[in-house]
């Protein structure tokens, strides 16, 4: 029970406080632009959860984010900052188009085949920064971000010249075969079975990190690579493996967008799913099951924001700004240690019934 409470305290208190803080700041920003914050937030909630079709849209939007969030978290857990999920996503998506368009097979074989191809390509792409990080100690943040541009430019070339659908005006490829489509189980919405894939993957990763030796090695390498080295874990190999898995999941995230939503590769199709994955992974503090919640929350935020944008005078970019503020507050270790170290401040917090217990617990 104490463990559970502690888990809730450290994993839930911070994100919730951060979200409240950001919403509070958002209220001021909306008021400064002469709008009614309650009305805007109301429309946002209505846009995210009001009715079947809105809820379905939130779900549909959260699928790629959950997947990229999981991809990011796997690398984070091993102490590798993979900011390159976006690149794996683009290349994986393109691989999905290639196999989905040029290979024909019955759906039961075709779908796994397309997913496997996307995962493979995503993993190979992530291998480059993973290997150079593990072996040559090249800063992976910089290389992954720079390689994102390379991946996006490369697919932009492929879709502009060799694989362009000449009948279309915009930069896009022809459609993939119907056997490669992911089944949409909540018609008329676009929610597809990629959702189950994401949930299963999250559960698998939870089990993987909690119960397997490999998962233990991953965690150890992330927490303290020197210690991991001395207890006999092959740190380099572990880092490379985690990047491979991270890239593979990133590739699958891209494939799901192609197979479930777009049915073709479109230039610049991602509004930054890879980076949204980073935000979600941070919000969930790299906990696979937490990412399911945080990913859906993020998807709902974006869907609600778009609705708010349409129905009020408040642009949807406000919400993305608030997400940035949330990231700041969630990761501000120093701010929380200030709360914990400052006795007077803590006593004041502890005098508030429910909150006090959580603060106390986290201090332990």
């Amino acid at each position: 029970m104490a463990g559970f409470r502690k888990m809730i305290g450290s994993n839930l208190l911070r994100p919730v406080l951060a979200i409240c803080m950001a919403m509070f700041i958002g209220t001021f920003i909306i008021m400064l632009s002469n709008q009614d914050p309650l009305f805007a937030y109301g429309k946002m909630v209505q846009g995210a959860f009001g009715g079947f079709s809105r809820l379905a849209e939130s779900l549909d939007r959260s699928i790629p984010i959950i997947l990229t969030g999981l991809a990011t978290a796997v690398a984070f857990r091993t102490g590798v900052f993979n900011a390159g999920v976006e690149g794996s996503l683009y290349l994986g998506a393109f691989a999905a188009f290639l196999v989905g368009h040029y290979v024909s097979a019955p759906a039961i074989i075709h779908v796994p085949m397309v997913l496997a191809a996307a995962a493979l390509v995503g993993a190979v792409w992530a291998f480059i920064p993973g290997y150079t990080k593990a072996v040559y100690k090249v800063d992976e943040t910089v290389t992954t971000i720079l390689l994102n541009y390379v991946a996006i430019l490369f697919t932009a070339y492929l879709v502009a010249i060799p694989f362009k659908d000449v009948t279309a005006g915009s930069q896009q490829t022809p459609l993939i075969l119907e056997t490669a489509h992911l089944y949409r189980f909540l018609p008329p919405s676009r929610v597809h079975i990629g959702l189950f894939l994401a949930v299963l993957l999250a559960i698998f990763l939870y089990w993987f990190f909690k119960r397997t030796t490999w998962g233990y090695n991953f965690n150890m390498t992330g927490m303290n690579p020197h210690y991991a080295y001395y207890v006999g874990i092959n740190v380099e190999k572990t880092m490379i493996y985690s990047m491979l898995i991270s890239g593979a999941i990133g590739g699958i995230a891209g494939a799901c967008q192609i197979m479930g939503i777009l049915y073709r590769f479109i230039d610049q199709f991602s509004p930054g799913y890879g980076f949204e994955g980073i935000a979600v992974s941070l919000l969930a503090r790299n906990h696979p099951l937490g990412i399911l919640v945080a990913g859906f929350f993020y998807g709902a935020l974006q869907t609600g924001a778009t609705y708010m944008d349409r129905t009020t005078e408040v642009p949807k970019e406000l919400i993305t700004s608030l997400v940035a503020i949330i990231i700041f507050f969630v990761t501000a270790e120093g701010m929380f240690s200030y709360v914990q170290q400052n006795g007077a401040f803590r006593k004041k917090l502890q005098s508030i019934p429910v909150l006090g217990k959580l603060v106390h617990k986290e201090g332990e």
Partner: protein
Amino acid sequence: MDTLDNLVNFSVLVAGIRIATPILLAGLGGLHTMQANILNIGMEGMMLFGAFSAVMVSYYTGSILAATMAAIVTGILAAAIFGLFGVKYRCDIIVAGIAINLFGVSFTTYLLRTIFHVKGSLSDPRIIGFPVVDLPLVSGLPYIGDLFKGHSVMVYIAFLMVVLVHLFLCRTPKGLHIRSVGEHAEAAASVGINPDRIRLQAVLISGFFCGLAGAYLSLAQTRMFVENMVAGRGFIALAAIYFGGGTPVGTMVAALLFGLAEAVSVRLQTIGFPSQFVLMIPYLLTVLVLIAISYVKKMRREKRKYTIAC
């Protein structure tokens, strides 16, 4: 031969200098954080804030000086947020950088839409750009004189800054402090330097330069504000710093190389060559250089280990 003439001539060089200028300015700022051992991912966001406030103040006041000042101040403010969370409150510095970039893109777009009620971009005759200056003596020279014609005053300021930054980092006590904190923070602390304060100051200096770089983008290169107009230049600047080995002059050379590559790619596009591959060059080159540097370091480490063992 005709195509080669078309690719390598003075107008490409001049365009290269113009494209290099914002990269150079941001790079000079990022240098300070790099020297203080802080990975500054957030330059992108700082530049965006600078670009937006420059356009806004230029639109309302018509004063280029006020616009530049505003860009610098907002650049420093954005850097202050980055520094406050990244240095003082101990957010992961990479995460803080990503957050400030996200904030920059979304909040400037938000402001663009709530203040000016436009989507995508804002261009207006009321926006005053930087004046164009021809250097009086040099521009009269044969051949190379053309290189110094038609540039905005910011281009010259940027290249002048290279000298100033070099002097600042290598010849002043503050510059020495920044470098010593980057080299060995505990050692610096033991002689009475407050590492966190120095780090914060380095971050603020980078905000100053990023603000200028943003102002250059919106008031010299285009005279308009476009959503997410920085478009990766912050990262190219970071690449330029790495590429230049962390020195001001090296960064300048790298920025010029990258600028030239982009200018050539624009040219190639007009003759039908896929521009994407040329645009990749700065990124690929930087990754390769990073790997090469680390490879050499690793070799050195191993050699040292070997000699100790003997």
